[in-house]
């Protein structure tokens, strides 16, 4: 019971933090408030650039169809200290992505990526004002 309460409390605080507009380039107007989904997929492109890095990956849906996703992170200057770099991903990498979905389409703000071998890249430690956006 105690653990459940703590979990609820952490999630609730996280949602409150997520609702504050904190992107360096743009605000939160395009995002679902307080929602994070987990998507498994295969990387097709990693775009290390300003104003935001983009990770493109394909999810294999249950019906066998492929769903194309595009997730954004903060700018390279924010991500570098959190361990991300230009070579963080290559096409074909199998990844599990926690993403805060946009209101339209398969787009969103990436909060965390886990590789098939268990390695993890977190956006929570990025040094931007958007840092809190990635907290869960």
């Amino acid at each position, binding site marked *: 019971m105690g653990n459940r309460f703590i979990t609820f409390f952490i999630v609730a605080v996280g949602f409150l933090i997520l609702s504050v*507009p904190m992107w360096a380039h*743009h605000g939160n107007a395009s*995002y679902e408030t307080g929602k994070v989904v987990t998507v498994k997929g295969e990387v097709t492109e990693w775009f290390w*650039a*300003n104003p*935001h890095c*983009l990770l493109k990956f394909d999810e294999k849906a249950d019906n066998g169809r492929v769903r194309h996703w595009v997730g954004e992170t903060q700018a390279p200057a924010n991500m570098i200290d959190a361990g991300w770099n230009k070579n963080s991903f290559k096409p074909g990498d199998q990844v599990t992505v926690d993403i805060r979905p946009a209101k339209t389409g398969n787009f969103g703000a990436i909060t965390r990526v886990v590789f098939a071998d268990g390695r993890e890249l977190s956006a929570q430690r990025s040094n931007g*004002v958007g*840092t809190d956006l990635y907290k869960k």
Partner: protein
Amino acid sequence: MLNRIMVLIVGLMAVLTLSSSAFAQTARQSPTVGDQKPAPAPRHDISGTWTPANGPGGAIQAGGVAAMPNDGKPEHQLPYTPYGLETYKSHKALEGKDAVAPAFFNDPRDKCEPLGFPRMNHYNLRMTQILQDEFKVALMYEYDRRYRVVWTDGRDMPKLVDGGVQLGRGWGPDSGHVREQRFYGYSVGKWVDDTTLVVETVGTMPEDRVWLDSTGRPISDQIHVTETFHRVDHDHLEWTEMINDPKIYTKPWLTMNILMVLADLHTDVMEMYCSPVEMEKYYQSYGNAVSGVDSK
């Protein structure tokens, strides 16, 4: 006798050379490490690589200028003139309480236009390198690798005139002439005590070219910016900014008061740029789609 004189001359030259190089080397100190108390501030010296004291991303100011975020709180309402408010409403910003979705902005920044001044102080203010000599102080910003020059050689502060500035004494061949508005204006600084440099800036671009911050707050070419750089001790620099823009605001107000900390002397500052090519790809791949705009 001749040999003695030669030896004396060589000896004197060696002493002079050694003493000048020794002086140059002791002029720079690394920041204090651990719990040691920082050394006192050096006199008339704000040079160094400075980073926001509350973390590398602590002065991005995405939500509006540091001292007055655009969050809708009553205490953060600005003293707009009617024209200032009208101008603010015409701005479609990606940040702040009136933010629009990425595809519907009209922020000059998103076309990679120069941010101008004082917005340069309010957009991704990160590591800032300050270099100085006896004539001037140069501020080199991390974002877009832009720089400003502040003259400290005693020249006159320019006077605002229609469409530009009238330069007074000390501006070399430009003295006495009217010169054009510039994105980063005309800055003159004066040491008011051993550790405080006050910088005045005028002659910046009009309201259709520059914004104050990322939330769409406006400024005009009538703005007069006063910055104070106070070196608290060797390792810390207080950077404040006050603006007076009677065309946009009914009274002066404080926009920024940020504490910077000295970085390691060997710090290599990362590149952070605005690339039109990358910006276009961002909007085609992402920004337009999340805004509900078909970019195909």
